[in-house]
């Protein structure tokens, strides 16, 4: 066997890739093709669906009809990504450079919420953000905010829910890239009369970029398609995201063609956005130089 492998060593990488490729083929490529086909359907569940390339209008119709929800999703996802970044960077920085012996404990605490079910965490936010909940209750009884103020069923609730849920996906990659930074580079900068701020701006931040890039992607992409936060914390027409539309088109209205078309619009939109973003940040060069 080993002799055989040695002889045909060029086959080894393919063998190693096989399980992943099979997984991808069954759970991603096949359903994608199915969905792509159904995005060109017309008809209804009762009368049956028929395929026709002329149904490309499913895409334009979907875009114009759900423009509002698409724009809102971009806005919510972007706001949540910025919020997670603002929370994560100082956090990761502290863990990487200042935590000392508590480093592992702090890292564990970042992941700790993941030991609870995602759904439970979102639902517990309903209690925290409730009209008289942990946050607003004390503020209201202190007279700091008026009684009819609410957070639940507003965009703020949905954005905070998303930001909370994706926090570790931002924190961990940034932590990893900060952790890798050679401290001697900072010392060298200081020797050359760099102020702490300019050392941070010229050394730390650029070297952390791959982590920031990975973190924003890991947050922004799933946040765009998220529907659970909008469903459980928003619950109002003014907070519905494109994920909610896809869910309801698929499961409530049995409108498979529109749902499939919207899914592809979402996928294509994200791909384009990521490509532009990668170009802007120029991380490809950074990653290759780091590696």
């Amino acid at each position: 066997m080993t002799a055989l492998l040695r002889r045909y060593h060029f086959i080894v990488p393919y063998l190693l890739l096989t399980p992943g490729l099979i997984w991808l083929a069954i759970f991603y490529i096949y359903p994608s093709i199915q969905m792509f086909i159904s995005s060109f359907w017309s008809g209804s569940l009762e009368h049956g669906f028929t395929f026709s390339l002329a149904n490309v209008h499913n895409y334009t119709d979907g875009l114009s009809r759900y423009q509002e929800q698409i724009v809102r999703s971009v806005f919510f996802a972007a706001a949540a990504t910025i919020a997670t970044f603002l929370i994560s960077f100082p956090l990761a920085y502290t863990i990487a450079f200042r935590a000392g012996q508590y480093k592992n404990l702090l890292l564990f605490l970042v992941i700790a919420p993941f030991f609870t079910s995602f759904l439970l965490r979102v639902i517990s936010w309903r209690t925290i953000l409730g009209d008289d909940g942990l946050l607003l209750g004390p503020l209201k009884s202190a007279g700091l905010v008026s009684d009819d103020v609410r957070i639940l069923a507003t965009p703020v609730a949905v954005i905070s829910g998303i930001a909370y849920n994706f926090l570790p996906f931002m924190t961990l990659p940034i932590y990893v890239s900060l952790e890798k930074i050679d401290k001697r580079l900072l010392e060298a900068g200081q020797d050359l009369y760099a102020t702490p701020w300019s050392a941070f701006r010229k050394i730390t931040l650029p070297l952390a970029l791959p982590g920031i890039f990975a973190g924003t992607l890991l947050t922004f992409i799933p946040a765009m398609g998220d529907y659970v936060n909008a469903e459980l914390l928003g619950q109002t027409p003014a907070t519905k995201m494109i994920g909610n539309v896809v869910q309801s088109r698929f499961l409530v209205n049995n409108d498979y063609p529109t749902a499939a078309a919207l899914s592809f619009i979402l996928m294509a939109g994200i791909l384009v956005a990521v490509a532009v973003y990668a170009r802007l940040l120029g991380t490809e060069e950074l990653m290759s130089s780091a590696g």
Partner: protein
Amino acid sequence: MSEQHPSLFDRALTRRRMLQGTALAGVAAFLAACGTAAQSVAPSVAPSVAASEAPSSGPSQAASPSPAASATPKPSPAAELNFANWPLYIDQDSSNPPKSPTLEGFTKKYGTKVNYRETINANEDFFGTIRPALEAGQDTGWDLVVLTDWMAAKIIGLGWVETIDTANTPAFAANESDNLRNQPWDPDNNKRAPWQSGMTGLGFDSKVVGSQTSMAALWTADPRWKGKVWLLNEMRDTIGLTLLKLGKDPATATNADCDAAIAEIKKALDGGVVRSFLGNDYKEGLIKGDLVLGTAWSGDIIQAQLEKASLKFVIPSDGGMIWTDNMLIPKGAAHKYTAELMIDYVYDPTIAAQIAAYVQYVSPVKGSKEAIAKNADKTVAALGQNPLMFPDAATLAKTHIFKALSADEDKYFNDQFSTLQGN
């Protein structure tokens, strides 16, 4: 509404005669031909559905070696029964919560293990999970499922349920409430057995909003409830109640009526009175105080009163809605005979009273009121006097049923209602 329903599938019925001799095979073939199941599965649909229809009394557990030719092979209860239902919809042993005395009793009587799963949260969603198997003429894995009238009508119309052999269900035949019998979509009373009925009306916290009797309250920007009002996200409940507010009958609703109701609800949304569209989780908000007034299901409020006594349910003066959830045996179910035994078992008034005392919806079983009144526990016995569980003629007169929508109407109504909710 009886005229409306046949139109739902008449296209299928006319095609049927051209296609095949067997009605069911025809419907299935029609569906397959239409490309709904444009996959490789399509060609096999017709024969397998037709085949599963053949042994009308023969549950598949009769796959015992006994010769199939004998006149009436006595079936025996299967070792297990797969039963899908909605959450909190059967009695539980208070000292041993997930256990249900009703299900335990069934196991004791027939030796059948009941795999009871609270897996149904919405009619459409659940139907979505069993439709592929039904379409392909395969066993869905469920022997008994509980779905609301309109969905039951749809599945029966598609020919995707087993006919209940009423010889096996004498209690069901005798004890089903008269007002539920002979639905236009089940004229022979053997395609479905009602599980519970319930009413939709106004639910509110009387300590905050006082006493409310009219739907108009949901359109009034009163500081006591502005922004703390919810509407049910079930189209038939919310559109139905709004139609009643507008003085229209939900039993004869047209697309134009739907538009009028949507426009009316929009006013309440734009005025900032209504905060959310919710399913079962409105109960949580109502108990916490984030919500104080909205459209609600009768049994939910009776249950929630245990946690918050100031909660009230009323049938609005404009009129309320009434609906029934039904037990169905999906086509091709592996344990049809045992499912029939279960249907019959829960139609025993004592068992029905046991379930009703816990779920507190309207029991479809004659004699359950008398049985519950005899309970040794006084608070339980008092439920026999609860007008929301055992509505009198005057209450029933104020309730309305929703029209059996045609497929196109159903699409239109749901589409408008989805758009209203922002999706």
